[in-house]
Each structure stands twice: as C-alpha cells, then as structure tokens.
C-alpha cells in the first residue's frame, strides 16, 4: 500500500471524520505528521486540512527530530537518589525513535 505524508495541526472536531477513517488509512505522529493512504480520499483530506505535503524521508526526519528532543529532555530530568524504575514511573518510559510506514 502506498502512502502520502503531510504536516498539519489537529484543529479538533471534524479534523478527521468517521467517514474519513473508513475511507482511507490515517495515522498521526509526533511533529504533527500525518500519514494517509495514497488515494483520492487521502488527497481530498490533505487538501481539506490544508496539509503541507512531505516526502517520507522529510516526515521521518520530523518525527525523529521531535522524539530525539524528547529523549534529551527525558535524559536531563533527574531527581537525586531516584532509581531507574522510579524515574520511569514519574516520567514514563524514555521516548524511543521508530520508523514510520
């Protein structure tokens, strides 16, 4: 399956609809990156939400950049005497980078 990539801010209600979700593949990722199915409905949605079209590598770079920033924040957020498990409990697991589809 082919995909398209864009960035757009989730404006809330009706940003994507139930109809959208039944018509084409849709994923949201850090950095306001959205992935749609590469079809007419996906194109219409990107147009509707005024998305900025990206290549896959551009979208991946945005996602990775946001997560790496988060990793730095996580690494720097320490409490004296705190165990690793306690830190995870306090902050959640350390953000991990991943590959988008």
């Amino acid at each position: 399956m082919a995909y398209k990539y864009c960035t757009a801010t989730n404006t809330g209600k009706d940003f994507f609809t139930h109809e959208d979700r039944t018509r084409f593949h849709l994923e949201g990722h850090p950095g306001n990156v959205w992935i749609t199915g590469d079809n007419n409905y996906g194109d219409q949605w990107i147009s509707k939400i005024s998305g900025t079209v990206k290549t896959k590598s551009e979208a991946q770079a945005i996602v990775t950049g946001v997560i790496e920033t988060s990793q730095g924040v996580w690494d720097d957020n320490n409490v004296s005497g705190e165990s690793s498990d306690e830190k995870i409990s306090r902050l959640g697991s350390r953000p991990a980078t991943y590959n988008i589809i």
Partner: protein
Amino acid sequence: MTDFKAIKGFNVKSLTADPLPGGGVANGAWASGGNLNGTNNQKRAGAGAQTSAIVMGGVGTGDDSNVDTELYNGTAWTEVNNLNSGRGLAVGAGTVNTAALLTSGRTASQAVYNETEIWNGTSWTEVNNLNTARYYSSGDGTSTAAILAGGEPGSGATADTETWNGTSWTEVNNLNTARAELTSMGTSAAAIAATGTTATAATVNAETWNGTSWTEVNNVNTARTLLAGSGTSTSAIIFGGNPALAITEAWDGTSWTEVADLAVGRNNTTGSGTATLGLAAGGGTNPTAVATEEFTAGGIGDTIKNEGQIYYNSTAGTMNITAVVYGTGAWAAGGNMNTSRSILRAAGTQSATLAFGGNIPPETGSVNTETYNGSTWTEVNDMNTSRNGSFQAGTQALALASTGTTPGGRTANSEEWDGTNWAEGNNVNTARYETTGCGIQTAALGFAGISTGNVALTENYDGTSWTEVGDLNTARRSLAGTGTSTLALACGGNEAPGTSAKSEEYNGTSWAEGNDLNTARIGGTSFGIQTDAVVAFGGTVNVEFYNGTSYTEGANIATSGTQGGSAGNSLAGLVFGRQPFPSACQATEEWTVPESVTNLVMSD
C-alpha cells in the same frame, strides 16, 4: 395494566409493506412545490436552497433568449429583475437566492456565451467572462467561489474546467472524461460531476474534484443527459434527464443508490438545494411546464417507531419485528481539550464527559477540570486537591476522584463532583497513584496502583466510606479499568518490571483471571462495561474490544500515546489527552458505531 403499545408505542398491526426508517435520503420523497410564473421554463439555470432558490434564463420554442429571473421562498415563485444577457443552457451557482452567479449558455439562434453575471438579491451585474464560452455545461458553488466543468464550446464535448474566485475565472485541470449535458454539485474546492454525454453516448461515469484534479469514482446506475442535481461532493442527488426521466439517484460519497422518483419525469430541469432538501423547477419538453418538485429526506408511509415494534406483513405473510443493527465503528477527531494533559481521569459519556486532574507539564498533578459536550471542551471549577493517576468513577454530573499523585506525593484524598463543584469526601484506606477505578459516585471501585510498591489492593466506595475488598491477582499500576463496582474489568499495566497483558474480572467479591490482551500495554485506558469494553492507548494506536471472554483488535485510533483518558461505551466513546513525553496532548478522538433500526422476519 400496561399493554404492548404502552411499552413500544405501537400496537401489533397488519401492514401491507414493511415500515421504513424515519429518516435519510434513501427514504426521501418528492412533493409538489409552487409553480413557476414564466411561460418558457425550458433549459433554465437554477441555484440556491429549497426554500431560497433562484432560476434564471431559459431558451426554447418562441423564446430566443429568456432574461427572466424568479425567486422561490419554499412556497411561491416571484419574478424579479431580468438578466442583462438572456440565454438558456447556462450554469447557475449559489446557496441562497440573494447571492448567485450565472455563466455560459446559448440562445436559440446558437449564440454561445462566456458572459458571467452576479445577482446581489436585487439586480444582475456583468463581471469577468469565462475563458471558454460554452453551453450544456455544469457547475455549482457560490457567487464568490464556483466551478464550471464540461459542456459544448460549439462542436463536441469538452473536458475543460474553470473555477471562479469572485473576480475572475481560471482554467484548471480537465475532467478525465470530456462530456456535456452533465450535472455537478459542490464547490470550487470539492465537487462531483456525473453522467452526461461524451462524443458518442450517455455515460455512467462520475468524477470528484478535490480542488486540484478530477478522479473517477463509482458510476451512476443510469446514464443520462440533460439532468439536474443538488448537494455536495459527498452527499448529493441527481434527478431527471432526457427525454423525460423521473429517476433519482443519491450519492453518499462512495456509491450511487436509486431513491424516490420525481412525480413528473423531465429533462432540462433546474437543480437547487442539498441532498436532503432538493428542488427541481420547470424543464421538460413543454415550454410552459411550470411544475416544481421538492425532495425531502425522511420517512414516508408507515415509519418505524422504535426497536421492538412487531407487525404482520400481509403481503409477504410474515411476522416481523424492528431491530437495531450496527454498522462498522470508526474513530473521528473530537474537539481539542483546553489544557493538554496526560495521566488524567474521566467519567461520563461521549457527549457528556468530565475530565479531571492529570499531568500538565511541568506540573505533577493538576486540579484542572473540563467538561465535553460532544463538540467542545469547557473549563469548569477545579478540584480541591491536585492529582494525576487517580481513581475515577461517575458521570459528568456526579463524579468521584480519589488518590493520585500530588506535589507532596501520593494521596488518600477523595473528592466528589456535584455537577458544579468538587467537595471533600472521606479518604481511601491506602494512598496510591497510577491507579484506576470504575462505577458511579455512590458505588465505586478503585484498584491497583503504586503505594510503596505496586499494589493489588481494591477498595469499594458506598457513597460515604471506602472499604477494602478482594485484591487483584496481579499487583500492577498504570492499568486500564472499567465497569461497575460489582462487575469490573482490569487489564494491562506495569507489573514493575514488565508490561502486562493480564486481564481480570471482578464479580463484586473477588477478581478472577480472564484471557489476556493481545497487546500488553502500560498507561492504557478503558471504557464500557465488563462484558463490552474498549481498551486504547498504552503507547500504541492499537485498540482492543472485550466481549466478556476475549479481546479482539479493532479499528485503530489515529494517534498513539499513553496515559490518556476515556469515557463512554462500546457504541459511543471517546479518548483524549495522552502523553508523548515530555509534552501532553489535547487531542480527542471519538469512537462511534453507527446504528439503525431495520425490519427482521421473526422465525423459530
């Protein structure tokens, strides 16, 4: 003594046909409207709404270039000021009869027009011309943003498309199939063009416009020419056609379905309005035909009153019952929360939700409370004690928040929401956080979490005080929980170490192990009841549905996260907030399973 009608609102009846659902284009019907005033009502252009329509121009026998304009108010047509350039076979655009556009067209003596005129509610003004003069074209939109596609420039059909921005026409990408005598509905940003004639024959072809290009979509059922239509690119009806078709088809954004016919078949009629409130005026081979018909979605004849309505179908000879059927659920974006947060808790339904507390970076624990009405989140009065990861129970009107993490550490504090304010209640027995709960304000259950370490402790609230009851089998924190104080579900969580897929059911006394989640998760959330629950979040877009026995993967949410909130039930729920560290999220996604009432034959 209560009878069947008192229960179901409908006596057992003998009907010659099945009753119909109460609404929808599929069950719409045409009814007669007020007659046009003009004496030449062929090949006019139309625009506007069913109760605010405009028709203009026309061409036909004995009238080379009709300049007449008429306005419709839902009851009667009124003649108003004339066009500057009389013509028929033109295209109209506009959503009301006080602001419209007319362009293209032809006279009986074959003069082809590219002139455009704008109607301001009182008079017509000439504005910039189309780039390509043509007739038998189609278009829609408004007086400031319209689209025109296809038609005949003079010899043969064209695929040319132009868009109007309120000032000028611009040539844009062509239709895939050149055609004339077609119809189109929508706007300059999203439209659909259907059927018409190519160089050789009428076509069933339909195309949608996304603001940039045309894409072929599913065909109409009946190829035809000289038809009309109303609606949008995702919801439209087309009707009439040459020579005197009455056929009406409805477009739902995916496919075409035949619906109720016009009472009087006709070609060259006008189309105004929407898919649910359409209007056809004039048309046909008789230039003096003045008939208007109004299409209105909804039920006709006997309608289904409610679920459980029993009747005898005397035609089919069957006993029947109306029953609810469910479609395929999907997630959609809801309104954004005012405050981004994670590790929050919530209560209520999809259209009446209460969300409270949570981690609002860089805070640890918040007093912030918001309500959701199905569209918008609104800030309401704060809790007295900031917290995240607390017990949760109740409704939007009567909720309970207990335990959680505060800036001072874990708390045993408990508060009750009365629809306006939070008031202090009696404390729980064991302070903890990263816990969860379920039930209502006067009969709640709180379970698991972290105290000095993970706990399996469960406490029951009777509206006054907390009592320890049977422990979970597996101590954990950051789990999902839902249900009632006597029938609860706990799943996933952090077993420290280890991400849990374990699921347990509470029967009012003790917890029993059930089948595991398919995806182990920390920071998940759940809504619904013990035997019909939805589990989301936990660092994944994956959503699972529990039927009381096992978990099944269903439609994913759009955006992954962990430690979000949720409310509702398996037919209508929502998830919101969530944590992609270090920030929190304000996004909401709504889960809805469409449901409708239909007729079923009763059998053994």
